[in-house]
Structure formats: structure tokens, C-alpha cells
């Protein structure tokens, strides 16, 4: 499976951040970027669309990100989808809670756009064991990223 075939769900209520995620993902060749600003819609959308990766903000209207993360991980249909938490909350406790709840990684806002773009590409390639060019081969099932951290 090529990176260009990846589907990414961006869960974020700040339009400026949604736009930069869309921009960064599209720069990596990923055109299927789904978005929601409502925490309560993340699980239903994920069940329906089966994204390859979820970028999840912790502070969203509808339902907070940590509860959403737990719901995703407790749901058989979505538990294997890797989730990167992207949050303005910097406390170590919050990072631990997110990682313990099953987050594949935790990125603190603000972040360096270029670095995040490169890291997202590395993350997806490592996760699905696929090169960035379109080879047409099937990817591995989703799971935790082998090593590395955003």
C-alpha cells in the first residue's frame, strides 16, 4: 500500500490547525484527509471510514480527546488504528495518560511544521512498512510505531 492511499482523520476544532495538517499531509502525498471538530463524532467516523491514522486534539467540543482515545481503543472496530495525540497541554501527567490510554505518540503544540511533516511521513512508512512511492504492495496491519517519537 502506498502512502498516497492512506486515509487520515484529523480531529481538531481550530480551523488554522486543521488547515496546516491538511497541508502537511497533502505535501506527503496523502489526499484523503478527513476532518471533524466534534469529539463525539470521532468514533463513528472512524468506524465508518477506517482511517489509517488519527490525529487527535485533546481539547475539543463534544467530547474531550482523552475520552475519545479510550473509546477508540475499547472499540473492536477502531482499536488498531494508530492515534497521535496533538495537544497544547504540556504536562507530563497528560502525556502519560494519553500514552497509557493507547496513543501511539504525543505532540505538543506549537510544533515545527516541517519537522512534523517529515515525522508523519516516517511514521506512516514505518507503521505500514511501505515506501513513499506508489509500489502497489499491501501494507502491514496497523500497530504501534517501531521506535522513534515525534
Amino acid at each position, binding site marked *: 500500500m502506498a502512502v498516497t492511499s492512506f486515509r487520515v482523520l484529523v480531529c481538531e476544532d481550530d480551523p488554522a490547525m486543521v488547515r*496546516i495538517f491538511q497541508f502537511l499531509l497533502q505535501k506527503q502525498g496523502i489526499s484523503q484527509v478527513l476532518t471533524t471538530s466534534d469529539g463525539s463524532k470521532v468514533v463513528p467516523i472512524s468506524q465508518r471510514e477506517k482511517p489509517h491514522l488519527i490525529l487527535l486534539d485533546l481539547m475539543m467540543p463534544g467530547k474531550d480527546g482523552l475520552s475519545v482515545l479510550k473509546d477508540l481503543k475499547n472499540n473492536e472496530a477502531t482499536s488498531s488504528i494508530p492515534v497521535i495525540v496533538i495537544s497544547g497541554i504540556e504536562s507530563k501527567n497528560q502525556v502519560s495518560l494519553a500514552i497509557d490510554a493507547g496513543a501511539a505518540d504525543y505532540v505538543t503544540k*506549537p510544533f515545527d511544521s*516541517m519537522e512534523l511533516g517529515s515525522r508523519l511521513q516516517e511514521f506512516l512508512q514505518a507503521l505500514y512498512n511501505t515506501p513513499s512511492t506508489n509500489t502497489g504492495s499491501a501494507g502491514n496491519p496497523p500497530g504501534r510505531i517501531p521506535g522513534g517519537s515525534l
Partner: protein
Amino acid sequence: MAEPALDLSEIIGLYKDDARRSVGQMRDAVAKWPEMAANGEACQQLRRLAHQLRGSGRTYGFRGVSRIGKAMEQVIIKLQAKRLPADERLRTFMQVQIERLAEIFK
């Protein structure tokens, strides 16, 4: 050899438009000072906007915006925890920060 900087020019104009709207909403929130002082909707709105600009500013290359957003957010958190009085000094601080943001995005 250093990597080239990421060219955000395609989306930076839209970000500035969003940020100008946020600055306008911040001015509106501070104008409702009694609501701010009582931790009402205006206070929550200002905190949300400051938090968002803190997160997006440096991401779009505006480090100063993240610094101002962070300073405002921290002050609002103290206000909400009643560790700061909602006095004239605080209102002036907020107004000065908002006008600094307006200057950046003019």
C-alpha cells in the same frame, strides 16, 4: 546542507485572516469585562482563542503569537482560579496583548 524551510505561503494568508477574526473576537470578549470578571462566556471564549493562537502561532512561523497567546492563557487560568483580581490592570494587560497581536496580523 540545511534543509529548505517549508513554504507555507499557500496557506499563510488564510491563517492571517483567521487570526484577524480571532483578534476581533478577543476585543469583543474583553469589552464584556463584567462577563470576563465573572468567568462567564467571554472569559472562556478569550481563553479558547488565546490557547488556539498559542498552538497555531509558531506552527505558522509566528513565534511572537505563541508567546502572547501563552501569556494570555496563563493569566486567564489564574483569573479563573481566582488567583488574580479582575481589575483595571488586568484589563489593560489583555488589551495591550490583543493590540500586539493585531499589529502582527495587520
